[in-house]
């Protein structure tokens, strides 16, 4: 066993063997996936091979090429036969972006947000209300001929959803500015519940949300006259949004703002003493985190073709938190891996396991495994907190080496006349 482990580690670190090994692995698993599109194991192997590629010592172009091959060729080809696979991947991209967004708030800025799903709901509802016949319920008669909005409005609605979600983030951020960690968590939870109660009850006096019944028939996006209403098109929109989110996160973490958040997270008092405006950066964290969730909410709405308050419960917020905690707070790779792992667990492994068990041992209906997601999320949180607080893939925090900073200073002074003489 250790022999295999050593060989694997050696291969992955050897710059000559690594790309060949990674490429062969991806090719093999991809072939398996394409030949057996309904095989869950094949999909798991593809995911594992992508993880191995991520760890291999090759140039980022090789990694990128392999990732493009899998996401743009293998999955769509396999998904042509097995629609559930594409559907799973759309949900996976949504969850990746949500986990990244929550990771910004909790991991970068250290503000535990237990109502994160509220912003997602905000984005979903904003588009659904105007992009369906629901708009006829509350818009004045003179404007009704404009609704439901056409599919190209989807693109225009993305910035609007982002704005609305960010505004919701602001309304949450303002009252909680003075609160410390645990109190803040409870208030964000209350905020999330308020949004859910509003979604459930705003069907009267004016029918904005259609209450618990939810909104159906949401206009799918269209591009240059083409209706993008297939799961595959949502898949591509999902990839683009998830990649944009990941890029934005990568830049944010290394920005001045990101460093201010890190300082705030580590020690609020010290950060304030260093001149960091806590009010500004806390609000920015809430608003930025919310904005990403708002955009993904729209994709969720068109993917489901249906929104209802049930999709935005406290459990969903905890599910995203479990992804972030599992991967590692403050770690971008961690958030992605956590999101992939939890989504696959939720939508694939639990179902397969239940099917398998129902065929073999005939469990009583009380032990219907897919029903027990809360239990699994709960266990993830407890076990991770007790045994591995830093998560599976702890982030390498961008560090500024003080010794390096010192060697850098004299360089500046080479043009100057003298140093403190």
């Amino acid at each position, binding site marked *: 066993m250790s022999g295999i482990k050593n060989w694997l580690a050696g291969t992955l670190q050897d710059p000559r063997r690594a790309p060949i090994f990674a490429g062969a692995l991806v090719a093999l698993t991809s072939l398996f996936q394409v030949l057996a599109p309904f095989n869950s194991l094949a999909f798991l192997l593809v995911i594992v091979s992508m993880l191995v590629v991520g760890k291999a010592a090759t140039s980022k172009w090789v990694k990128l090429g392999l990732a493009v091959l899998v996401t743009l060729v293998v999955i769509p080809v396999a998904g042509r036969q097995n629609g559930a696979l594409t559907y799973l991947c759309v949900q996976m991209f949504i969850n990746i972006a949500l986990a990244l967004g929550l990771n910004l708030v909790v991991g970068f800025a250290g503000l535990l947000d237990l109502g994160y799903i509220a912003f997602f709901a905000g984005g979903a509802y904003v588009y659904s209300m105007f992009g369906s016949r629901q708009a006829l319920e509350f818009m004045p008669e003179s404007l009704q001929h404009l609704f439901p909005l056409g599919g190209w409005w989807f693109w225009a609605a993305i910035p609007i959803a982002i704005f609305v979600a960010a505004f919701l983030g602001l309304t949450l951020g303002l*009252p909680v500015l003075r609160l410390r960690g645990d109190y803040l*968590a409870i208030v964000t939870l209350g*905020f999330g*519940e308020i949004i859910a109660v509003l979604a459930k009850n705003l069907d009267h006096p004016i029918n904005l949300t259609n209450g618990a019944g939810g909104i159906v028939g949401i206009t799918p996006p269209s591009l240059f006259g083409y209706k993008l209403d297939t799961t595959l098109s949502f898949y591509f929109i999902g990839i683009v949004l998830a990649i944009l989110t990941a890029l934005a996160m990568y830049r944010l973490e290394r920005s001045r703002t990101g460093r201010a958040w890190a300082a705030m997270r580590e020690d609020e008092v010290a950060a304030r003493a260093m001149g960091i405006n806590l009010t500004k950066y806390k609000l920015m964290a809430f608003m930025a985190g919310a904005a990403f969730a708002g955009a993904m909410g729209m994709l969720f709405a068109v993917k489901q073709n249906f929104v209802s308050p049930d999709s935005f419960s406290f459990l969903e917020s*905890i599910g995203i*938190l479990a992804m972030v905690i599992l991967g590692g707070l403050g770690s971008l790779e961690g958030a992605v891996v956590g999101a992939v792992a939890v989504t696959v667990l939720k939508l694939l492994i639990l179902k397969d396991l239940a099917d398998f068990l129902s065929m073999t041992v005939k469990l009583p209906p009380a032990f219907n495994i897919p029903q027990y997601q809360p239990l699994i999320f*709960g266990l993830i*949180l407890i076990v991770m*907190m007790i045994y591995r607080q830093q998560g599976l893939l702890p982030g390498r925090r961008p560090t500024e080496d003080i010794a390096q900073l010192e060697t850098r200073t004299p360089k500046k002074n080479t043009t100057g006349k003298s140093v403190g003489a």
Partner: protein
Amino acid sequence: MSESLQILPQVLIDGLVVGALYAVVALGYTMVYGVLEFINFAHSEIFMFGAFIGAEVFLLFKPMTGVPHFVPLIIGLILSMVMAGALGWTVERIAYRPLRGAPRLVPLISAIGVSFFLQDIVRMVWTAIRGNWQLGTQDLYATGISFAGAQIQVRSVMIMGIAIVLMLSLSIFVNRSRTGKAMRAVAQDRATAALMGIDVNRIISITFLLGGALGGAAGALYTMQYTVVNPYIGFVMGIKAFTAAVFGGIGNITGAAVGGLCLGLFEALGSAYLGPLTGGVLIGSEYKDIIAFSLLILVLIFKPSGLLGETVGEKV
């Protein structure tokens, strides 16, 4: 308007009964917060577990029509207190103690995990043994008496009476007994208390035991009041009881009692009069939960120390 005034006594009594339940649950939050500065998120599930134990005991006595109602009541109360106390103690041992000294959010996240875990375990167990996770039980003391134009059920009076007895005994225990004194010492300064020879871990365990027992008692009383329990009753009750604890001043036992009663009254008044006041636009009962959440947010913004709490400076 005269019509709305007529229902006022009824509204006040309903509010006080619910408020008494909030108060007893709030005690569990406030005690743990006082000692550990930690929000025991799983307390709501311990309450829910107590409610299930109470429901099972009441159900057990349902066929025995000859038995007076105080027998299942007392047995249910004691059993749910013992079992819920034991659960509270166990949870602390497994999920919180290893995390002592970790950053604040770590035990909180663990507690959220415990909360979901317990919720689902209860659902699983009762689905397995009863075939349904919703459990209806028998009416205890359902007879009504008329008083000042209000219809009061005997059980409402009993619930309030039991809640007051529980709160008074806790108060006496904390203020008069030796263990209570040790608890207050640990709450004030854990390190110094340890230096004075107090076994801090033992005191923390006792706090969770007592808090859990109170939660369990509140659960049994809840079952008595509403007669139907399910695994999800803990969540809303937990938030409201926590609001009550914060409203009264967290860490303060009298504060929890006052906060609970106030919140119960606010809610009852809100659900009864929000509709008439807004001309029927908003239906009070639908926005009842928002009253509690908004109160929580407002208190935390304007007076985080609560009604009876003292302001504590941030430790650097």
